[in-house]
């Protein structure tokens, strides 16, 4: 598949939030102001661009059926795919930890912007979900996996900044009492999701 095509598809059509509902928890919790949500969005994009290709390599050379053949032909029949979850989550947690340390040492300004969000990201379902989708779709090379990670991250960033902007404006509107806060955010996300569905066309 054309890389640019894949990028656009993962940003709009397969948007992590509106099509798959991944990372909803932090999406709802952190989207109070545009500034913090942009910070979290950037951190998610950053981590996705790194974890998806790394997990792609892990999956290709370690976990998928027959992947161990490069070590010795005797291992060609080993299928470790049942270990996928534990490997992926361990890799993600480790990369997030390492990134946190690297960013803290080399770019303190970026660290103060992203800092509090980085530990949260290890348990953000968008990150693990993106790796699992990558495994399910079977991309043919690392480049495609990286582009998929980048696209999904940018899609997520777009979604969280959009809802944060709407919620900032919403503070001045009159909402039925029971609907205030979380309730209205759900309904707005639903409406935005319907709008995003126009990218793939309605199928009834």
């Amino acid at each position, binding site marked *: 598949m054309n890389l640019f095509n894949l990028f656009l598809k993962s940003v709009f059509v397969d948007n992590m939030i*509106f*099509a*798959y*509902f*991944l*990372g*909803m*928890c932090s999406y*709802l*919790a952190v989207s109070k102001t545009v500034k913090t949500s942009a910070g979290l969005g950037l951190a998610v994009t950053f981590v996705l661009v790194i974890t998806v290709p790394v997990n792609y390599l892990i999956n290709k050379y370690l976990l998928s059926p027959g992947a161990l053949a490069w070590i010795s032909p005797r291992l060609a029949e080993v299928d470790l795919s*049942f*270990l*996928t*979850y*534990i490997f*992926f*989550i*361990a890799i993600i*947690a480790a990369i997030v930890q390492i990134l946190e340390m690297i960013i803290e040492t080399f770019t303190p300004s970026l660290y103060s912007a992203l800092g509090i969000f980085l*530990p949260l990201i*290890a*348990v*953000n*379902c968008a*990150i*693990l*979900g993106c790796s*699992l*989708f990558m495994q*399910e779709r079977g991309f043919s090379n690392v480049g495609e996996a990286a582009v998929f990670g980048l696209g999904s991250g940018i899609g997520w960033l777009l979604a969280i900044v959009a809802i944060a902007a709407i919620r900032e404006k919403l503070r001045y509107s009159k909402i*039925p*009492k*029971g*609907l*205030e806060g*979380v*309730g*209205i*955010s*759900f*309904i707005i*996300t*639903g*409406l*935005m*999701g*319907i709008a995003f*569905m126009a990218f793939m066309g*309605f199928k*009834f």
Partner: protein
Amino acid sequence: MSNWKKLLIEPLRKTNPVMVLVLGICSCLAVTAKLKPALVMGASVTVVTAFSNLIISLLRKGIPSRIRIIVQLVVVSTLVILVDQFLKAFAYDVSKQLSVYVGLIITNCIIMGRLEAYALSHGPGESFLDGLGNGLGYSLILIIVAFFRELFGSGTLLGYQVIPQSLYEAGYQNNGLMILPPMALIVIGIIIWINNSKTESK
């Protein structure tokens, strides 16, 4: 005894993880187009929450607090692997429908939230019940949402046709919008609204 009951009943409504604490939304929305996957998902999450709470509670004195997140993730993902293999063996078609969302139980915030907030500071028995209660609270919402989406979206429940054929002949049509993912958000928004206004009026 009343304490035990409280641990089980409170998360169903008063401290419901989905409605009140807004945790674990991700998977809650994606699997609710039909009732059957929702039931399976609810059961899986309940099992994982209950047992991970039990295990972490047993280990809580031995885990250094700096690396507790990793330990928790490992325990939870081991349990999820067990559930996943079980589903693949005994309910293959549902496991195909749930696809990646079984794996995403690992990062379900309800589980991490309960581990952090409860299991790390309470005994194994209580933690187990707390996990069970929260899992059930989550399943409850899942089932309510799936019930409405399947009823209005496909006119069936658990795959059996509920809306009579004569109604279709009289011009009734399934609401295709209900099957689309965004409707799940709107249904949950309405459930939260109803719940909030009920709690306030008391």
